[in-house]
């Protein structure tokens, strides 16, 4: 159920766009109104979520130290995994965000008779995760050729590199292949590993299916049921220059693609996909581990009721004197 439902939901979205554009001819709704709404929700929703997180303070310095601390000059500090400076934190965060360093540590625990526990290296999740995120980013950046009248050389270089092997016409993008393969793997592992399946929610399958839907419709319209590509760019350029147009004869599949992307943008700020912003705010990673060196201030630190020495001495004065302990009051 928790797998079927999100799957059916994505299929339903596809049919909705098909019916809306192909049958009901609501080109303006699916081509202009919904994309605008989705972009607005994404941008303002994202910022709103960051604002809500930012409103709560970080009361304590709680980095997870993953290496040797800074102590003596003769003991080598692990400056990336236990950073004591801002530079170290930047390095740690860069590795985390760009290369998924923590996930790279992943191990697989096995229990054999004896009992013998062993911890093997397990890099598949890391590799698939990294492949997915990076190809998604490159594909997104590649799409900027639809958003700009004169496409900068950098984008053309990215595109050139992505289609380096010059397979077929139009040229096959490596990232298309990698993205589909990685997402498929990520779906597959949720289904095939019993414990991962056990923890998965509909909210875990839905974005995977949705992204897969986006990738498939995108690939279809590039390689199979081709669309009027110049018309597509005209529509997109109309959107980004705030003078929307609906060119004729683009092809329904484009509107399906666009609708799925709009759904993703709408869904993004209210879902776990916000890990994109959240990873930057994780206090176990983004703080220097120097709390013995520099005092961390808690804005809501308040005085508490303590049991003072005076009260303590009052409780035990006789016993203390008998034991020969010095006391403040005789």
């Amino acid at each position, binding site marked *: 159920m928790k797998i079927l439902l999100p799957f059916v939901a994505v299929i339903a979205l596809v049919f909705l766009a098909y019916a809306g554009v192909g049958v009901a001819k609501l080109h303006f709704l699916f081509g202009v109104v919904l994309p605008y709404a989705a972009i607005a929700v994404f941008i303002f929703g994202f910022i709103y979520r960051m604002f809500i997180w930012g409103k709560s303070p970080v009361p304590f310095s709680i980095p997870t130290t993953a290496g040797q*601390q800074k102590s003596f000059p003769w003991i080598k500090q692990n400056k990336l995994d236990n950073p004591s400076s801002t530079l170290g934190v930047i390095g740690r965060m860069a590795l985390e965000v760009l290369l998924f360093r923590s996930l790279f540590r992943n191990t697989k625990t096995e229990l054999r008779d004896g009992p013998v526990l062993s911890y093997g290296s397990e890099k598949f999740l890391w590799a698939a995760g990294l492949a997915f995120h990076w190809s998604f980013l490159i594909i997104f950046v590649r799409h900027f050729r639809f958003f700009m009248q004169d496409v900068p050389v950098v984008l053309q270089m990215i595109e050139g590199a992505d289609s380096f092997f010059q397979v077929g016409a139009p040229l096959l993008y490596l990232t298309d292949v990698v993205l589909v393969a990685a997402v498929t793997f990520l779906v597959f592992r949720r289904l095939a590993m019993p414990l991962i399946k056990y923890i998965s929610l509909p909210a875990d399958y839905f974005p995977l299916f949705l992204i897969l839907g986006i990738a498939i419709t995108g690939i279809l319209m590039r390689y199979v049921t081709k669309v009027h590509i110049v018309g597509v760019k005209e529509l997109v350029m109309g959107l980004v220059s705030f003078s929307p147009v609906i060119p004729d004869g683009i092809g329904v599949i484009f509107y399906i693609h666009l609708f799925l992307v709009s759904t993703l943008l709408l869904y993004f700020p209210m879902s776990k996909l916000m890990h994109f912003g959240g990873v930057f705010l994780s206090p176990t990673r983004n703080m220097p581990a120097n709390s013995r060196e520099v005092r961390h201030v808690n804005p809501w630190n308040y005085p508490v009721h303590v049991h003072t020495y005076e009260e303590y001495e009052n409780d035990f004065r006789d016993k203390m004197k008998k034991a020969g302990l010095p006391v403040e009051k005789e």
Partner: protein
Amino acid sequence: MAKGPTPAELANIDYTPPQTEWMDTPTVIKTGTFCWGAKAKNLNIVEFPNARDWNPSEEDWKLPENWQEIFLKGMKDLLGKYRSFKVFMDICVRCGACADKCHFFIGSGDPKNMPVLRAELLRSVYRNDFTMAGKILGKLAGGRKLTLPVLKEIWYYLYQCTECRRCSLFCPYGIDTAEITMMGRELMNLLGLNTDWISGPVANCYMKGNHLGLEPHAIMNSIEGMIDDIETITGIRINPSFNRKGAEILFVTPSGDLFADPGTYTAMGYMMLFHELGLDYTWSTYASEGGNFGFFTSNEMAKRLNSKIYAEAKRLGVKYIIGGECGHMWRVLTQYMDTWNGPADFLEVPVSPITGTRFENAKSTKMIHVTEFTADLIKNNKLKLDPSRNNGLNVTYHDSCNTARGMGLLDEPRYIIKNVCNTFHEMPENTIREQTFCCGSGTGLNASENMELRMRGGLPRANAVKFVKEQYGVNTLANICAIDRATLSASMEYWVPGTRVTGVHELVANALIMKGEKERETDLRGDPLPGKEGN
């Protein structure tokens, strides 16, 4: 364990999840895996709400009428106070990288002990009551109403987490279950749902200065006994001071070291070392606890207990503080103390009076770890050591969760051990340093009624010890944590019999050649030294 499963039975672990979804699988509170409920009298001492005697195994938990309201209001409050809590409630993608990193999951196979699911128990309530999607879609969005069985389930699994943070190391977003457990336990304390093993020590520590409730004269008696033993072994009578104003250094260590073997040998080790150095230091009976069980109840309680250390340092007029070997004590001292009760501007940046080394890394807290202090002494050749006295010991070292992942104190204790022992072997790399496994009994889970849980949680650590025992003949497990010294003794006896559990400063004191000492026949435990067995 007197009764309960044998090691062979316990090691028969099934990692297959149940057929039913976790939200539809009721939790049964099992004997041997939970601690007794807090007693009213202990909670009353520290003015905690809803104090009453209660029993987790009984149907009626005697909750206040409006317990849901209290819980949810408390949650809202914590979400506003802690960005960590809010972010960690929102951004988990359930990738499962943390799943098999938890010692309790590895040892029990209970899927609700996977860190991700332990967090989801609370997260489901969060989604239901604090997110738009959850309010509209409910279960479809992973939301779950806070019912009595849900509350009991959350409670049960919050007390099957030792806040060791191993999961947080592997999480791609650094989601720290320790943080979630701390929030959850704080919420439970609003409902009086504490455990006896935590609330008792907290009340003791509040009134008497230490978890064990040792009154001033009892502390002195205990140390007196150790001094006698030291004299028997070394021929030297040492004379530590208590509550002495004007001393240069205040020494604070977990009270466990004053009370029970093998912690007492570590305490003897500190005293022998300090005596040999002629260190101008004092003990305090008021701040006679380095550990902080308050940390396992609420942030406020932890602060209330911790305040004594700086207060006493100020009253006695010392220059700085040395802290003994303890685990969560050092998480508190490193990441919390200065924020709560600082700035300690009445103290000075610690400088070793022996070597002149300035401890810049502690220039704000003004409190250094005793292994930092000792490693510096050894590096500067200030100690005369005879490591061969430890030749009977084939040593491995267990990193405490908190000193490893909340501090990064990894190489200092190793440096000391390698200088005071001739035989040292590391456990497998996935079980040490930042990847270290918990003893299985931290955060106040070191009671006796939950022994099955403790032994399950202790399996990964014990198994790594067993590996080096079989591989290299390791027979000694060194550590720098009072709870380790107590709990690893139990889990070693269960999983790897014949393993000695020892503090690092016990090893130091064994090897330490003291001025004017007689020829030593035995180690601190009274066991004959290598080559002296015949005497």
